[in-house]
C-alpha cells in the first residue's frame, strides 16, 4: 500500500476533488507555483491549470470575500489561509457573510466554500504561527468546523468538506502534516461529516481529542496501557456540529472523561464538550470531567512551547486525577 503524509493526503484530496468537479477552484497566498508553504497544493497549478489553482494578492478578507462572490455564481472555492493567526483579517467576512449567507437568503444562496487553515503549534515557529482558533469558529452558527486527526481522515474529511453544501472551516493540525500512514485512496468519498470516531477502545476512562491532540491522546493511551489503564480515545473530527451521541455513549461506558485541546483552556472548545458531557452523563460520571489544554497565555516563543502544549503525561496526570478510589 502506498504511504502518504498528511500533507500529501490533503493534496491528493484536493486533486481528486478538482478532477471530479470543474467548479472546484483552489486559491490563496502562495498556493500556485510554490504549492503552499506546507506544500499542500503542490503541483495542482502545474497539472490542473493556473485557473484551477492560483495565487491571490496578499489579503485574507479579500480571499474569503472573493470566494463568497465566486460561490454565489456556482464555484466551489477551497481557499487557504496561510497560518491560523493570518485568518483573523478575514474574521468579519467569515462571521458576517460566510456563516450567514444561506440563512440571510432563506436558502436561495448556497455557500459551498472550504476555508483551509493550518492551525496549532508544536512546529517551533515564532509568534502568530501557532494559534488554535477553533473555538472562534465553532461558536459561530452557520459554519461547519472540521479537523482531521489522522492521515486517512485528512483525505476523506477534506473530500467530504468540499462536497458539502455548507461552508466548512477545515482546520489542519500543522504539526501532523508530516505524519505518515499507509492508505489506499479511492476516488470515492470517505466519511460523512459530523461523526466522531472511536480510535481506541477502553473501559476505564474516555479521552476526547481532536486534530493535533488525537495522536497525543493515542500516545497517552499507549503509555497508560503499560500501567493498566484502558483508555478509550474518541476523535471528534467534526467540532461543529459535535457528535455528542458518540462521546456520551463512550463516557457512559467508562464513567470518566478527559477532554484535550491545544488551545488556551479558558472558554475553549473543550469547555463545550465538558459542559455537554457533564449535563448528559451526570449520573454516569464517577468524577468530574477533566480538561487538559494549553495555558491561558498568548502562544509562547518556540523555545517554551512544550510547556504550553498538552502532552501524553499531562493527559495521564488528568486521568490519574479522576477520583479513582472506588474503581479499577
Amino acid at each position, binding site marked *: 500500500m502506498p504511504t502518504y503524509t498528511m500533507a500529501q493526503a490533503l493534496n491528493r484530496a484536493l486533486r481528486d476533488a478538482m478532477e471530479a468537479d470543474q467548479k472546484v477552484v483552489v486559491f490563496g497566498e502562495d498556493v500556485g507555483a510554490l504549492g503552499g508553504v506546507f506544500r499542500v497544493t503542490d503541483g495542482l497549478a502545474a497539472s490542473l491549470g493556473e485557473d484551477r489553482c492560483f495565487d491571490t494578492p496578499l489579503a485574507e478578507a479579500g480571499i474569503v470575500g*472573493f470566494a463568497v*462572490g465566486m460561490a454565489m455564481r456556482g464555484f466551489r472555492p477551497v481557499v487557504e489561509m496561510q497560518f491560523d493567526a493570518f485568518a483573523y483579517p478575514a474574521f468579519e467576512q467569515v462571521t458576517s457573510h460566510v456563516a450567514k449567507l444561506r440563512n440571510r437568503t432563506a436558502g436561495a444562496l448556497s455557500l459551498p466554500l472550504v476555508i483551509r487553515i493550518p492551525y496549532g503549534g508544536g512546529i517551533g515557529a515564532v509568534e502568530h504561527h501557532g494559534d488554535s482558533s477553533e473555538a472562534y469558529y465553532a461558536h459561530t452558527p452557520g459554519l461547519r468546523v472540521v479537523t482531521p486527526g489522522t492521515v486517512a481522515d485528512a483525505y476523506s474529511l477534506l473530500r467530504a468538506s468540499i462536497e458539502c453544501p455548507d461552508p466548512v472551516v477545515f482546520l489542519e493540525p500543522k504539526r501532523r502534516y508530516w505524519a505518515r500512514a499507509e492508505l489506499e485512496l479511492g476516488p470515492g468519498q470517505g466519511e460523512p461529516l459530523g461523526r466522531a470516531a472511536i480510535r481506541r477502545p477502553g473501559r476505564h476512562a474516555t479521552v476526547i481529542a481532536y486534530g493535533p491532540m488525537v495522536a497525543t491522546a493515542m500516545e497517552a493511551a499507549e503509555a497508560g496501557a503499560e500501567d493498566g489503564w484502558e483508555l478509550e480515545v474518541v476523535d471528534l473530527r467534526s467540532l461543529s456540529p459535535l457528535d455528542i451521541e458518540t462521546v456520551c455513549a463512550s463516557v457512559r461506558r467508562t464513567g470518566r472523561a478527559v477532554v484535550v485541546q491545544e488551545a488556551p483552556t479558558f472558554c475553549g472548545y473543550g469547555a463545550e464538550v465538558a459542559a455537554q458531557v457533564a449535563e448528559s452523563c451526570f449520573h454516569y460520571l464517577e468524577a468530574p470531567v477533566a480538561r487538559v489544554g494549553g495555558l491561558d497565555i498568548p502562544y509562547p516563543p518556540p523555545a517554551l512551547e512544550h510547556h504550553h502544549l498538552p502532552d501524553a503525561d499531562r493527559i495521564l496526570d488528568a486521568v490519574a486525577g479522576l477520583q479513582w478510589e472506588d474503581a479499577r
Partner: protein
Amino acid sequence: MGTVITPAHSSPVTGSQLLPSPTPIRFLDERGNPVDEHQGYQEPDLGLVVEAWRRMVVGRRLDTQCSALTRQGRLAVYPSSRGQEACQVGTVLALGPDDWLFPTYRDTMAILSRGVEAHEALGLLQGTRHCGYDPQKVKVAPQCTPLATHALHAAGLSYACGRLGEPTVALALVGDGATSEGDFHEALNFAAVFRAPTVFLVQNNRYAISVPLARQTAAPTLAHKGIGYGVASEQVDGNDVLAVLAVVQAGVARARAGEGPSLIEAHTYRLEPHTNSDDASRYRDEAEVEAWRQRDPILRLEAWLRRQGALDDTRAKAVAEEAEEAAASLRAALSEPAAPDPLALFDHVYAEPTAPLLRQRAWLEAKMASLSEP
C-alpha cells in the same frame, strides 16, 4: 462611450490617464441647463432618460412612504435615499438584465428600480427577514450592512461569470464612508488584479452618519483612489442622471469588453437623516441641506425634460398618479403585520438542519404549542 479610460495594463508607467476628470462629469447644471462639462461622454438616449425620471419620481414617493411607515412601526428602520435618486436609478438603468447589483442598506430605490417588488425589497428593513427577495432571481445581492464587505463579493461574482464565459457585470454600491474600510481596498485590488468586470460606484453623499467627508479622507477626490489599483476612475455629478447614466454605461461597457473594473465617484447628498432614528441637526446645518435641496436631481431633470419637449403636465400628472398608486400598494402590502414562521429559524442555518438544531426546533415547537394551549 465616453473617456472612461484605457486599461491599467496598457499603461504601466505613469498611469495618469487612470485619474478622474478634474471636475465631475455633468450634462446639466443645477437649474437643468445643459452644460459642456461631460468630457466626451455621450448624452444618453432620451427615452432612457425619461424612464429614469419616471423611476426617480416613483422612487421618491416610495421613499417618503417608507419614512412614514417607520413612524407607524411598519418598518424597523429606514435609511432614506432622498436626494440620491439619480445615482440609484441611473446606475440600475445602466445595467443589463443579467448583470448583478450589490446594494447596501441605503439602496432601496436602486433595488426597486431593478424591478424587485416593494414588499420584497423591504424585507430587511421591515424586520421580518434578512433579505426579502431571491437574489438569484432578481440578480440583486442581499442588501449589505457590514460596510464595503460586499464589494469583494461583487468582484468575486463578476470574475466567476467571466470564467464561465458569461458577459455579466457586477456593480457594487458603496458609501463615501465605506471607502475607508480595508475591504474596499482589497476589493478594488482583487478586481484589478483579476481584471474582473466590476463597477464600483461610490455614492458620496458627504456623510457617514455624522462624519463629514473631510474626516473620512484627505484625498483630492475619492475617485483618485482608482489609480493606486490600476483602476480607471471617474467622478460624476450624482444629481445629474444624464451624467450618471453616461458614466456608468461607459464603465459597464468597459467591464463587459474585458477591460477590467472601474471606480466611479458620484457626488450627491442625503437630504434626510441617516435613518429615521438619526438626529441630523447634531452634525449639519439646515443651510447646508437647503443648498443641496436646490440641487435636487428630480427638479433639475424635469426642467431639462420640459425644455426638451419630453415632459408636459399631463405626463407629469400621470406619473405622479402612478407614484401614488405605488405608495398605496406599498402601504397595503405592509399593512398586514408580517408574521414569519418561527420554526423556519432552523431551516437555513445549514443545507440540512443538524441534530442539535433539530432538538432546538422541537423544543421551540413544543413551547409554542404549550403557549397556544387554552
